[in-house]
């Protein structure tokens, strides 16, 4: 079961596109996830990769991940250490890519407004709660199929698990 996460919030603005999350010039280079992580948010916040800690939380404005379908934009963020992304809204393909990479993507404009950059935030996946300094915000828990993908740490592992059973 995936339960509760607590981490430091990294807060950014609206319309952050996939080119600044993971630059296009690397998309056709073969890279392992750990290598991709070194370029996460490279063109948005050059300090991010050196300061982010395992288990931190990314908070963003509306339409996070707009643009390309490149999956590396989700993989890189996850392997940089981000446990969960909370945004006002997500671009469609990014939302899918995040879940398929085993990284929950939660839409909650209220929580985004409340959270200050750098504060400790707790997310309870099973209950559907985001606990911030300014209060607790709820979101509808994920349907079963999606929870299973997250529990298996991503789509590919999930597929492996069903193929083996």
């Amino acid at each position, binding site marked *: 079961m995936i339960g509760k996460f607590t981490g430091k919030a990294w807060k950014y603005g609206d*319309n952050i*596109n996939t*080119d600044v999350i993971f*630059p*296009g*010039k690397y998309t*056709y*280079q*073969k890279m392992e996830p750990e290598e991709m992580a070194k370029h996460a948010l490279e*063109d948005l916040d050059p300090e991010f990769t050196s300061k982010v800690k395992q288990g931190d939380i990314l908070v963003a404005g*509306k*339409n996070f991940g*707009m*643009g*390309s*379908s*490149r*999956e590396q934009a*989700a993989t890189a963020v996850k392997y940089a250490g981000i446990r969960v992304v909370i945004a006002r*809204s*997500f*671009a*469609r*393909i990014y*939302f*899918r*890519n995040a879940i*398929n*990479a085993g990284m929950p993507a939660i839409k909650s404009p209220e929580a985004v407004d409340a959270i200050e950059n750098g504060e400790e935030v707790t997310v309870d996946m099973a209950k559907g709660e985001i606990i911030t300094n300014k209060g607790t915000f709820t979101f509808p828990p994920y*349907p079963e*199929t*999606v929870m299973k*993908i997250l529990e298996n740490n*991503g*789509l*590919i592992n999930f*597929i*492996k698990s*069903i*193929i083996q059973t």
Partner: protein
Amino acid sequence: MAQTFVEKLMSKKAGKEVYSGAIVSIEPDYVMSHDNAAAISNTFKKIGVGKVKYPERVVIILDHEVPAPKESSATNHKEIRQFVQEQGIEHFYDINKGICHQVFVEEGFAMPGKLIVGSDSHTTTYGALGAMSAGIGRSEVAAIWATGELWFQVPETLKIIINGEMPRYISPKDIVLTIIGQIRADGADYKSVEFTGETVLFMDIAERMVLTNMAAEMGAKNGYVPPDHVTFDYIRGRAKAEFDPLYSDEDATFFQVLEFDISKISPAVAKPHTVDNYCPIEEVAGTKIDQALIGTCTNGRISDLEAAAKILQGKKVKARTLVIPASWEIYREALKKGYIETFIDAGTLVLNPGCGPCLGAHLGVMAPGEVTFSTANRNFKGRMGCREADIYLGSPLSVAASAITGEITHPGRFL
């Protein structure tokens, strides 16, 4: 209960009645990928099933870097060819066919009522023929290769009704850029966008493809034009299988219905660096351009080349100009109709069908400080290979007119 097109299609696939918001695991009819099939095949191998479950549903079309500009892309292509052989994938198109989205349609895979996914965000294009088609990620494609199915959330539907007669200097690109300027880049986020109205009824397939291609730039999951006689005429003789057209019920629940009258719009331009950074062309007229690009999966079809040729006929270009037919079928037709000769006489560079410089990998990369006016669908920073360059987007008529003067120019001047 009344259903939208996409609710009907997903219900049929799921074998139970579903409505927007539901999550279903269903089997796509076709799964398309291009040069990224090499990366996908690596992920696929990690799953460990060995064989692709339904090789006949896999379509692979090489187009992004053709012919290979460097060793790494050549190796990519080589790996794909090997994989295709090993797996017995028959729907494989090598570097001599054209842009994936155009070839997919020409080869008759895009059919009414089909569920199609692809590892490219502009997979939305096939909705012009009444299919439900959406871009997905690479792992998702690998998962479908392995299991045949994938999870989907049934989207809500945004209906866009377009009415009015297009003035002679207006094309579907101007219409869709104008709409995106109003509803913005996330205006249709996660939605199924249905394009209807009298203007759409009178559009041919190529024109409808501009709308559904650009649906991706509104954040849509898919774009859809209800199939009619125009659709059936186009796919007669092309369709790869039997098909069953599906339509929204009149009284289905739509997220929103928006109406646009396009009879008085100006040629539209998307300024750097977002597609929703709209302005009427008059506002940026006179902006100097270094390069003009006519082509891509948005505007590289025969009617686009015809529009450009009409303007370039007997003229010389001032800006360096790249013309890229979207496929060899289109190239051949343009050759027969004399457009290629017109382009060469005008001093343009006619390149081989493919994505060309659209994604900044080769064939027309920009230098810092330069400006390109392009018929493509994206103008993000760095898109054409240089972060310090500016990309404006417009219609083939506008780009051709501007190529002649060397600055952004209203196409009405040459019509």
